């Protein structure tokens, strides 16, 4: 396998892993949301991102099978890789915390995803471009929904404001790795950082929240160095496939 096809596979897996692991976390809210309408809304987002992950995994499987003569599927990629194989951003695997932390995580992620997919859309790979075009429509809604919640909670009651500050303090250190290119990514990734910050500042202004400065950033997700949380997420998600190897479901 040459370097560039290897890189494309890793990059596609990275995109799929982010979407799947965030979906797995968001799904924990299903049937437990703060109000029925919002239970439905976050479940919609969950379905969107799991759909995105399937598109990326199906493409990655096609790439892998073409060069390695294997029989990889979307499910073997999701269910049979281990903690160190997953390349998702650390942010995606963090516990949901309260509603403030969940909506802020979604807002940070979707805002980044939109910028990334806008570039992907015009990139050289037709498959990734097509997935990006399809996903951007969904992501625009995710940003609108989560951004409105950040504002509502930031500028709501004293309690909700404090909870948002707490969420910002918990999550900010996981946003740095968005823009640090792994060896399977283009180094111009850093150029997205200012646009991302701008959008975050706009929403934070309305939400009466302050953007933290001089925070030491956590990294490692893109290269498989995860938090302690990921192992549990995978154990639960993969349990049936691991218990009954080779079964069809």
């Amino acid at each position, binding site marked *: 396998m040459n370097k560039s096809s290897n890189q494309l596979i890793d990059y596609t897996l990275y995109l799929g892993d982010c979407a799947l692991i965030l979906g*797995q976390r968001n799904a924990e809210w299903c049937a437990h949301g703060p109000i029925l309408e919002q239970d439905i809304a976050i479940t919609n987002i969950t*379905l969107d991102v799991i759909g995105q992950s399937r598109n990326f995994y199906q493409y990655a499987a096609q790439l892998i099978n073409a060069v390695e003569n294997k029989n990889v599927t979307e499910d073997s990629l999701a269910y049979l890789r281990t903690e160190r194989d997953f390349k998702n951003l650390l942010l995606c695997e963090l516990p949901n915390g309260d509603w403030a932390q969940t909506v802020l995580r979604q807002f940070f992620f979707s805002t980044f995803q939109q910028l990334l997919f806008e570039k992907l859309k015009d990139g050289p790979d037709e498959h990734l471009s097509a997935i990006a075009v399809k996903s951007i429509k969904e992501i625009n809604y995710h940003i609108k929904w989560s951004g409105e919640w950040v504002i509502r909670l930031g500028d709501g009651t004293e309690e909700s404001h404090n909870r948002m500050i707490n969420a910002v303090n918990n999550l900010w250190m996981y946003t740095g790795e968005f823009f640090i290119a792994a060896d399977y990514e283009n180094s111009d990734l850093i150029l997205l950082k200012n646009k991302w910050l701008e959008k975050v500042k706009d929403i934070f202004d309305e939400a009466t929240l302050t953007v933290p400065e001089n925070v030491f950033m956590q990294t490692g997700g893109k290269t498989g160095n995860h938090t302690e949380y990921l192992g549990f997420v995978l154990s639960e*998600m993969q349990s049936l496939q691991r218990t009954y190897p080779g079964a*069809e479901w």
Partner: protein
Amino acid sequence: MSIHDLELAFQDKIDNEIKIEPKDWMPEAYRKTNLRQISQHAHSEIVGMLPEGNWISRAPSLKRKAILIAKVQDEAGHGLYLYAAAETLGMSRDQLVEDLNSGKAKYSSIFNYPTLTWADMGAVGWLVDGAAILNQVMLCRTSYGPYARAMVRICKEESFHQRQGFESLLVLSKGTKEQREMCQDAINRWWWPSLMMFGPKDSESTNSDQSMKWKIKRKTNDELRQNFVDMIAEQIKLLGMTLPDPNLKWNENRKHYDFGEINWEEFWNVVKGNGPCNKQRLAARNKAHDEGAWVRAAAMAYAEKRKNKLKTKAA
């Protein structure tokens, strides 16, 4: 018009298949019966999200995961339409939710049984949604307009869920030895509780006669239960599985399946709160509601601030 005349006019409408609408005059007992039934139905959708939500994180393939999430989400949507229908009878959503959480209002007892294995997702879809559909198809023609219209939408989605449940079991029934055992075990556990979903026997049912006269219901509990047994006894042949009832047998004279006696002691105990998961289900609803209180308060406070800002601007 005297009350007596109003009642006659009301019954006349019912007899002529004219739907009763929220602003129409209706006997207080009709309003109460509908409110009780619609709210119980709404609560059942909401509590029913819990046993199935239980398997979302462990769904064995991405396709199954997406199908299951979409299904649980559909149930939330059904809960919403039904709460809206219940509100037309004069009770606020807040009050409805409070009655569920305090244990005052009932929901379908079936959701007080646990989902122990993945096969339960198929069995719940096939048997529980299958039983619910028979009831709901009848309710599409119920006399109260908002309820009937909500049911038309809900029925379309429910029959889809039932087919998905059956298809999921079909895959297991053709799978490995462990999968076939898992499939049979789930059917064994869900069969009798599904039969209980139709409620007490007609001879013991207190609300049935009046509900039939008002066309809230159009079939009795026993009629619906028989329809269900006849349907499932045939469908199970396609799975190559069995139903856990030694007395299940085609009766050529009746042109129906005979079946064994339901354990009514278990039925009444689960209704009274002594089922395997009654406490957990209510605790989960209360936890979600209580932990969401600050979110709802913040949303209200923010909406109020916005309104004031707009007012100041306008002034």
